[in-house]
């Protein structure tokens, strides 16, 4: 594949992956009781997330041929989350929780599709990831995860899936 073709493909991949996340966020707000409250997503945030994502690839020496959709949405989602404060009341919903759920649902959706419906994380697994994101945000990082931890969880799942497919 020519380098220009590869870059065009990457841009398209990134565009569609980003779309998936924002559609999930939109659905999250539509289904919540918090309709008057919405995420304060700014263009600068998206730009920052793309830069961090590119730096991350550069740091680890990854010569990216195609965008890793899992990684990209982790970076964008956590950039958006970093601007939101959390309602400590465990019974109450808040903007942070809605966006965090949408991020987790997007990643679970990618994995579900990647595995053709074979790997669909149960509620308990999703809840664990959510609690870890909340812990990080509430200054309990020893119990939390953020973009890299979240990405690693799904990355290892995808690698396991590929290993099983190869072995079958």
């Amino acid at each position, binding site marked *: 594949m020519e380098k220009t073709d590869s870059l065009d493909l990457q841009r398209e991949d990134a565009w569609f992956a980003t779309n998936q996340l924002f559609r999930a966020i939109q659905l999250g707000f539509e289904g919540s009781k918090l309709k008057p409250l919405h995420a304060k997503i700014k263009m600068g945030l998206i730009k920052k997330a793309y830069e961090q994502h590119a*730096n991350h690839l550069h740091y680890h020496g990854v010569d990216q*041929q195609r965008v890793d959709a899992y990684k990209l949405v982790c970076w964008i989602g956590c950039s958006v989350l970093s601007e939101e404060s959390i309602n400590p009341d465990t019974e109450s919903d808040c903007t942070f929780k809605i966006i965090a759920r949408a991020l987790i649902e997007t990643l679970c959706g990618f994995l579900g599709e990647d595995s053709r419906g074979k790997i669909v994380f149960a509620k308990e697994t999703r809840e664990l990831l959510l609690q870890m994101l909340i812990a990080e945000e509430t200054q309990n990082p020893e119990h939390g995860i953020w973009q890299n931890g979240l990405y690693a969880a799904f990355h290892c799942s995808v690698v396991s899936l590929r290993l099983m497919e190869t072995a079958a």
Partner: protein
Amino acid sequence: MVDRAMVDGTVVDTSKDQLKKLLFGTYLLTKDRTMISLNFEQFLELWKEAMETSSKEETTSHPDLFFTNGMSDHLAEALRTEECLAEKYRVSWD
């Protein structure tokens, strides 16, 4: 359902049909339930800037470190459909 959307600076109706037409535009929610669109041109500009900025930075490179480079063709195809994958594989949080 969101009532209207800002598309390239223009407020438009977001009935179901209209939303379908907007499907390939990334939209962001704002406080007053309108949406800010991130159009494809803006997106390309941001992506290009990000890639150029990162390539100038000093880094510790680990070329021998392997982790997935990209995604499967199947997932890449699925991202391009009208389907929201989060919704397709949604599990109730209750």
